[in-house]
């Protein structure tokens, strides 16, 4: 079981205070919704926790064992952290199947020179691609997929990481944007499954109905600081949250 905690996490870009003194805890077996108006620091928050942006100060606690004052992208699989991106990021010139196989089979660089994908890795790839409903496109290049299919492939990559035990903490950065209703339903089901498997799921989303439906806890960011946290219905009914988020 993995928890993820931030302690006094701060990220400043020169004079811009993107995140200031954030101390938040994410628990396993729960979906935590992260909301906030545009520019509230949601993306910076995820980027600092996933090694894309270095931390200015503060620390990140992983699984109550490791206290990190900096995190680099290479460390993320080691700490069981993975993510999707607001703007989908795939291995564009590789087939859909290879996008997953390269995740399931990557290991020591020396072994990678001689080893090939095994039936086990292929089975995982087939399983996750079927789960998100894009197995029929497995020979297609990722760059040729539709927007929705690309989103689903990114989610399949997360599932593949989970299957091989490298994803205990999962960030979903606006996974529903641009999806058809049936795809929205599918992604929600996947998130609930991950929760029931004990994963720490963090969902950044603007759709409040989905946040209410899925989140066990909601965190509201405003101007890089923590405005509110707690039960979804309670937090979303707070006047200061409504004012900050909806500008009302």
């Amino acid at each position, binding site marked *: 079981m993995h928890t993820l905690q931030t302690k006094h996490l701060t990220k400043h870009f020169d004079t811009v205070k993107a995140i200031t003194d954030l101390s938040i805890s994410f628990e396993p077996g729960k979906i935590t919704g992260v909301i906030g108006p545009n520019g509230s620091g949601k993306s910076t928050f995820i980027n600092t926790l996933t090694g894309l942006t270095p931390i200015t100060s503060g620390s990140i606690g992983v699984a109550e064992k490791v206290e990190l004052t900096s995190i680099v992208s290479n460390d*993320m699989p080691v700490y069981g952290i993975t993510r999707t991106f607001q703007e989908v990021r795939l291995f564009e010139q590789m087939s859909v199947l*290879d996008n997953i196989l*390269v995740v399931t089979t990557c290991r020591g660089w020396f072994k990678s020179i001689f080893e090939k994908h095994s039936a086990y890795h292929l089975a995982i790839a087939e399983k996750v691609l079927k789960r998100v409903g894009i197995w029929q496109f497995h020979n297609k290049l990722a760059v040729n997929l539709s927007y929705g299919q690309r989103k689903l492939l990114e989610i399949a990559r997360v599932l593949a990481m989970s299957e091989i035990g490298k994803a205990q903490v999962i960030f979903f950065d606006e996974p529903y944007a641009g999806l058809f209703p049936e795809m929205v339903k599918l992604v929600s089901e996947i998130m609930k499954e991950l929760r029931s498997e004990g994963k720490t799921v963090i969902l950044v989303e603007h759709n409040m109905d989905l946040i209410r439906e899925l989140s066990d806890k909601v965190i509201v960011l405003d101007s890089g600081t923590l405005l509110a946290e707690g039960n979804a219905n309670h937090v979303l009914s707070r006047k200061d949250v409504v004012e900050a988020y909806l500008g009302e």
Partner: protein
Amino acid sequence: MESIVPQLMANSIIAGGIYALVALGFNLIYGATKFFNLTHGVIAAIGGYTVFYITKKNDSLASFFNQSIGGTVFAVLIGVLCAALVGYLLDKFLYKKLRDRKASPMVFLVASLGAFTCLQAFLAILFTSQFQTLGGGAGDIVTYTIFGGIITEVQAIVIVSVVVIMLVLGIFLKKSLFGKSVEAISDDEHVAKIVGIHTEKIISIVFVIGSAIAGLAGILVGYDTGLEPTMGMGLLLKGVIASIIGGIGNVYGGVLGAFLLGFVENFGIWKISGEWKDAIAFGLLIVFLIVRPQGILKR
């Protein structure tokens, strides 16, 4: 009167072969790192000068390496390994530091130009700017006549080397997990990192392989025409043109572009002065940049 066309074709294939060797390594490194590694040219020269040192300059080593054909092959191997080592060290102590600092492509370009200039000056200090040759006298040159065109033994080795390296490299990158990892890094290095690919180690190996191929190119040029410390820039520019017109980042595209460049250059100067060769090469590059900037083959 005998036709000059067979010899022009032979010259085109030989020039294309040399450019292809440079383009193969350049494309491999560019594919993984997405920057114009200008040091690739001087690494070719380092390969050539390493063989020059152990077979010509240092008398005690030369007596050992020049004893038999096996000695020559061993010397070439040392030259290739030395070029690979320099490529590895450049990556470890220069390019990796820049990657860690998330430097822009312009910074990489300027840094590699600086390293290129330093290494080129180092070669000139060690070996003087005088033209040197690795091969024996003109009387020792073995030649073959193929379809009316004459090629030397070294030139035949160039062609065979290009074909073998292209096929081995192409199959290795296509079939191995290592190749998939290189492709993933090429597409998105950050995502490759977060899914657990050992990006730095793989980029280091890519530098080693690419630099080894450049070293072989420099050695073969040394045996074919000769060496001078400034040879790297000429080789690099032709390799880069070949890579761009063939399809940058594509192993087969680089080779295709190299042979196209070789043919256009050599047939282009059929009726005019050889001084036009470089102008024709860059003219071809400009045409491709306007008409088909992605090159003949896409990555």
